[in-house]
């Protein structure tokens, strides 16, 4: 089964467990990072992601034919995170936490729900603050899960350089999503 344009063609009952493994492995990392950045608890994040996959697995066969599985998974993870916040009596009125989670999961354009278009814009702006090299390193580190040494080898840099780049990138991203810079921006849209 191919996963092209992030749309899994037959989300039908015929999907075998091996097919589903491909789906699981394509999205697990980013979903986990999303949930973890949101709820900031490893066990809770893992449970939320496992639940999202279980839901889709159990409903295979009943899902619309050309479902965008990626968006579906992200939406269910997002709602579970919001639910967790509600349980703690926290509201994310300005979608600051959401934006942060979106940023650290490196969600693509296909992932973002229409209702979140504004925060996606803010996230994009934050990422644009990085130099191309920083962006590349961050992507290898976060979305591919490569180690410092592996990134260093791939890009022909020293491990220390990679480390420094990552720290600097992280700082830049955080600052650009701080409530003060983001809050205003998003507030306008509400």
């Amino acid at each position, binding site marked *: 089964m191919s996963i092209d344009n992030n749309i899994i063609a037959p989300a039908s009952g015929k999907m*075998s*467990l*091996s097919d589903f*493994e491909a789906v*699981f*492995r394509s999205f*697990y*990392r980013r979903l*986990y*990072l999303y949930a*973890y*950045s949101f709820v*900031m*608890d490893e*066990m809770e994040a*893992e*449970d939320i*992601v*496992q639940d999202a*996959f*279980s839901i889709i*697995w159990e409903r295979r066969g009943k899902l619309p034919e050309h479902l965008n599985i990626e968006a579906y998974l992200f939406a269910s993870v997002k709602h579970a995170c919001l639910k967790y*916040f509600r349980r*703690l*009596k*926290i*509201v*994310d*009125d*300005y979608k*600051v*936490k959401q934006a942060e989670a979106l940023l*650290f999961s490196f969600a693509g354009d296909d992932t973002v729900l229409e209702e979140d278009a504004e925060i996606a814009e803010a996230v994009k702006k934050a990422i644009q603050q990085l130099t191309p090299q920083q962006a590349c390193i*961050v992507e290898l*580190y*976060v979305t591919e*899960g490569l*180690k410092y040494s592996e990134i260093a080898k791939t890009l022909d840099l020293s491990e220390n350089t990679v480390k420094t780049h*990552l*720290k600097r*990138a*992280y*700082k830049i991203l955080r600052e650009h999503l701080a*409530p003060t810079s983001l*809050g205003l921006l998003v507030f306008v849209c509400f």
Partner: protein
Amino acid sequence: MINWSLLRKKIDGKLSDAEMQIFKDWVDERPERQKFMERAEKFYAKDEMPVVEQQQEDKAWMRFIEFRKTKTIYKQLRRWGNIAAAVILFAGAWLLLRQEPVEPVVQEASSAFEPGEVKAVLRTSRGEVLKLGKNDQRQIRDRQAVIKMDSAGITYEIVVAVEKVISIDENLHDTINTYHGGEYMLRLSDGTRVWLNAETELIYPVAFAGGERRVKLSGEAYFEVTKDERNPFIVETEGVDIKVLGTSFNVCAYDDDEVVRTTLSTGKVQLQKKNKKICVLNPDQQAVVNKKSGEFEVMDIQSSFYTRWHEGYFIFRGNTLKEIMKTLSRWYEMSYEFAAEELDQEKFYGIVSRYGEMKELLRAFESTGKVRFEYQDNKVVIKR
């Protein structure tokens, strides 16, 4: 309800007095809010990005499989908390597998416990004997085929002229053997790919003539058969024949096992004995056939657990230590002995690379606290 932005300001230490009061009212009300704030503060104190390593993904997938099976129980257990659920469901012991040893590995002087490698012996139809290794780079011309050897294994290509002019003699067979600690890959003249695991023998025609494509296997191999509906591909083993049209599957038929295990990844295969149909397998099904009695059982399984050895992994999911040690002893240079009763029935879960050092691998088992290994020369003694 409290706003996240206010909590974030608290973490940054930027709350006004009025805001501080709102925060305190919220946080003091419930202990879990206090805990949440502690975690949040830790999260923002880090100056590194969160990251997911490969092993976490592997473990998550295994968890998904396990929890899917035991979902109803799990849903109930969840209410008691995740830890309880994890402990009960993984009572068999979950291996915490490390990709990199934390401590430096001490180099062993002897070659004992070395993992297997890409190596095999080829006996051609003309009686030549060739040793095959990882870095071969040669080519031999048989009467009917060109046999190429390189890092991708061995490839048979039918000589075009021969195919047209002379009829192919299917009785010319080559034999390939991987002995202890060896694995090898080959591509037959019809394009079918075969991965041979350790201690395996495959006998096959140098060139397929049309009609049934028959090969003979003892040991374990993973097949990706080239589709050709008019000429079915048949794997003969002691005990059962597997008939396929075009598909990928794993056959485990070692001489010292009582059963032949056939696991289907894609397509469809039919198991038969003396041309009599036994059963048909669908993807993610496994047939276990007793060689002597012919009794069989078909189970729903996840095929990748049985086929990923050909991608370089050992996958154990609730296998007994007895089965695990047998598998390891075919791959690593070693013998073993159980020094405690019933220890061989202990079950384990985990995924590990086939190319790591054996002691490192066994250390992962030890980390579960269920088992200990002692090393004597070439022998591993298994204790409680």
